[in-house]
C-alpha cells in the first residue's frame, strides 16, 4: 500500500517553489473546470485573469481589493511564524472598523487631519482589543486561540449589526441599518484624481509590509518568534518568553486587521454598515500561506487573491458562470499548496501490506 514517509531533510528550494507549483496547478485546474462547464478554456482564462486588469482603472481596483488582504496577511504572518494561530482576523477587522467609525461619527463636525489620525489609532486599537481576548485567555488559562479567535468573529459581526441598527444608525436614514456617510475629513485621501478608488490605505499596506519584513528578518523579536515556530523547546531552553510571543503574535494580527477595517470604512465605504468585511480576514489566511509568511510574497499573493475575486465577477458577467467560481479557484489554490507542501516534507513509498 501507499505510505507517506518523512523525508530526512525538506528541500529549501521546493518550499519556495511550491506556491508557484500550486498556482500552476490551479490554472490547469481552472482550464479543466472551464472545459467541463462547457466554456472555451482560453476564453475563460482571458475573462478571468486578463480582463479585470485590462485598463488602468482595473489595475487600481486590483490594488484596492488587495490592500486589506496585504494588511491582514502581514499581521497574521507575524503570529503564524511562531505557531500562534489567529483565525479571527475577520472579527478584529470588524472591531477596528467599528472603533474607527465611532471616531468618525463623534468628530462629524470637525475639520482637520486629527480626525483621520485618530481613526487610524482607533482602528488599530479596536483590532488589538479584539485580539487581546484570545491572547489573554491563552496565556492565562491556556485556551485554544484558534477556537476563541474564530468564535469572536461572530460576536464582532453581531456587535456591528446591533450598532448599525441602534447607536450608530443614520438618524436621517429611514431606519435602514447603516451609519451616516462620513465627512470628507474622515475619508482617506485618494492617491490619484482619475476617479479610481485607491487611497492612502495602499501606502499603509506597503508600510506594513516593510515593517513586517524588518521585524521578521532584522529584529531579535522576530528571530525569537521564528525559533519558537520551528522548535518550541529550543525557544524555551533559550529563555524566550512564550507568553510574550503569543501576545505579539495576536496583537500584531489584531492591529493590522483593525487598520484594514478602518481603511474599508474610511475608504471605499465611507460609512459603516453590517458589511464591513468582505471575508478579508479569512482570505488573508490563504494569502499568508501562499506567501510562505513572507512579506514580499504577501504583496504578490494578495494581488493574486484580489485578481481571483475580480475575475470571478467578470466570469459571471461575461460567461454566465456561477458566483462560487471565485471560491472554487481560492479553494484549489489552497488545496494544491497544502498538497505540494506535504510532498516537501514527505515522500510517497510503496510498502507491501503489513
Amino acid at each position: 500500500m501507499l505510505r507517506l514517509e518523512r523525508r530526512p531533510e525538506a528541500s529549501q528550494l521546493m518550499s519556495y517553489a511550491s506556491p508557484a507549483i500550486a498556482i500552476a496547478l490551479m490554472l490547469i485546474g481552472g482550464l479543466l473546470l472551464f472545459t467541463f462547464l462547457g466554456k472555451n478554456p482560453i476564453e475563460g482564462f482571458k475573462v478571468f485573469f486578463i480582463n479585470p486588469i485590462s485598463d488602468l482603472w482595473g489595475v487600481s481596483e486590483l490594488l484596492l481589493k488587495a490592500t486589506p488582504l496585504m494588511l491582514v496577511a502581514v499581521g497574521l504572518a507575524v503570529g503564524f511564524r511562531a505557531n500562534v494561530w489567529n483565525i479571527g482576523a475577520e472579527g478584529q477587522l470588524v472591531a477596528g472598523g467599528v472603533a474607527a467609525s465611532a471616531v468618525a461619527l463623534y468628530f462629524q463636525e470637525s475639520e482637520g487631519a486629527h480626525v483621520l489620525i485618530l481613526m487610524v489609532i482607533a482602528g488599530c486599537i479596536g483590532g488589538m482589543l479584539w485580539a487581546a481576548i484570545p491572547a489573554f485567555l491563552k496565556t492565562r488559562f491556556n485556551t485554544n486561540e484558534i477556537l476563541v479567535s474564530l468564535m469572536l468573529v461572530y460576536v464582532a459581526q453581531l456587535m456591528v449589526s446591533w450598532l448599525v441598527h441602534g447607536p450608530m444608525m443614520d438618524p436621517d436614514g429611514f431606519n435602514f441599518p447603516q451609519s451616516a456617510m462620513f465627512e470628507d475629513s474622515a475619508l482617506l485621501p485618494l492617491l490619484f484624481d482619475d476617479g479610481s478608488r485607491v487611497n492612502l490605505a495602499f501606502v499603509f499596506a506597503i508600510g506594513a509590509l516593510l515593517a513586517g519584513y524588518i521585524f521578521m528578518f532584522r529584529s531579535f523579536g522576530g528571530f525569537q518568534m521564528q525559533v519558537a515556530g520551528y522548535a518550541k523547546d529550543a525557544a524555551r531552553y533559550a529563555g524566550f518568553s512564550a507568553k510574550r510571543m503569543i501576545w505579539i503574535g495576536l496583537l500584531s494580527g489584531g492591529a493590522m486587521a483593525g487598520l484594514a477595517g478602518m481603511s474599508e470604512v474610511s475608504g471605499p465605504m465611507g460609512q459603516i454598515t453590517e458589511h464591513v468585511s468582505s471575508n478579508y480576514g479569512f482570505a488573508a489566511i490563504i494569502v499568508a500561506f501562499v506567501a510562505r509568511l513572507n512579506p514580499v510574497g504577501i504583496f504578490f499573493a494578495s494581488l493574486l487573491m484580489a485578481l481571483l475575486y475580480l475575475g470571478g465577477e467578470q466570469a459571471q458577467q461575461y460567461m454566465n458562470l456561477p458566483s462560487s467560481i471565485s471560491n472554487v479557484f481560492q479553494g484549489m489554490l489552497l488545496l494544491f499548496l497544502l498538497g505540494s507542501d506535504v510532498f516537501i516534507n514527505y515522500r510517497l513509498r510503496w510498502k507491501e501490506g503489513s
Partner: protein
Amino acid sequence: MILKKIISKLALLALLGAMTGAGMAADNVGFVYVSPIGDAGWTYQHDLGRLQLEKETGVTTSFVENVAEGPDAERVIREMAKRGDKVVFATSFGFMNYALKVSKTFRKTAFVHATGYKMGKNMGLVNARFYEGRYLTGVIAGEMTKSNVLGYVAAFPIPEVMQGINAFIQGARSVNPKAELRVIWVNSWFDPGKERQAALTLLSQEADVITHHTDSTAVVQAAEDQGKYAFGYHSDMSKYGPNAHLTATTHLWGDYYVKTIKEVQAGTWEPTSVWGGYKEGMIALAPLNKAIPADLQSRIRDLEKQMTAGSLHAFAGPVVDQAGKIIVPAGQNMTDEQLNSMNYYLQGVVSKVPN
C-alpha cells in the same frame, strides 16, 4: 524594464480580449443580486423579472449574483455601466450609495435601485407594498387559527419588516379580535438554521399559523413537519410544504422592468420613486391552498379587488399601537410617511420591539 514589458503584453492581450467582445447588437441590461438566485426568495423573484424582460422585449441581460453590499458592488455596477448597459438594476438596499456614486459618472445609463431612499438625476427607486399581501394573509390566519396564536419570524426591525408584522395582525384582527401575534427576531436575512429554530419555538408556544420575513424556506418546512400552517414570503414556497403552505405574498418585478426598458429605449425615461402594490401589479398572492374554505377564498379574492381598486388600505383607521395610543383615527389611512418610519408594534402583537 521587465515589469514594463509584462504590462504592455498584458495590455495587448487585454485589447485583443476587448475586441473579440465587441459588436453587441441588442441593448443589454445589467442586474446586481445580493444573494445566489436559488429557487425561492428575494433574488429569485428579481430573476423571474429578468427572464420576463428578456422574453418580452428582446433585450439581452447579464447578472452578477451574491454581490456583497460593500465596495465590491461599486465595481460590479461600474463595469455594467462602462460596457454600455442601457439600464442597471441594483436589487438590494446596500447597493444604494454605490449605485448613486456610479450614476454620477455614467449619466447616459439609467440606474434603478430596489428599496432605499436616495435618488439621482439618472437613478430611480422601486419598491413594493408587500404589506398589502401581509394584510390578506393575516385575514386568512385569523380565520384559520384555532389557538388564536400566530407566529412571525423576522430579520431586522426596519420599517419594511415592521409594516409586514403590523399589517399581518391588522388583517388577523379584522376577522378575529382574539388573535395575537408573537415575533422572534433572528438578526439575519438568511439563516435557515436559526429560522427553523425560531419557527419551532413559536409552534411550541401554541402558534398554529406562522410566517416569516427572512429569505429561506425553513419556516414553511418547519410548519410542514409539525403539521401546522404557514405562509411563504417573496416566492411561492408551496413545494416546501404542500400541506402547510396556505399561500404566500409574492413579488412581481417583471412588468416594472419591461416598462422601464421601453421608456429608456423610447427616450422618455425619467427617474421616479415607485412604491407599487396591488394596484400596480407588483405583488400577488400565490395560489391558495385547498385547505382554505371556499367562502374564505372568495372573500380573499374580493379583498384583493378592493386593494387593487384602492378602497381597502391595510392600515385603515383606527390603528392602535401596543400601548393603546391611536396612531391613525377612524376614517383615515396611514400615510406613506408614517409607513416609512414605522418602528413600533400595533395592538395584538404580544412581543416587545427589540431595543
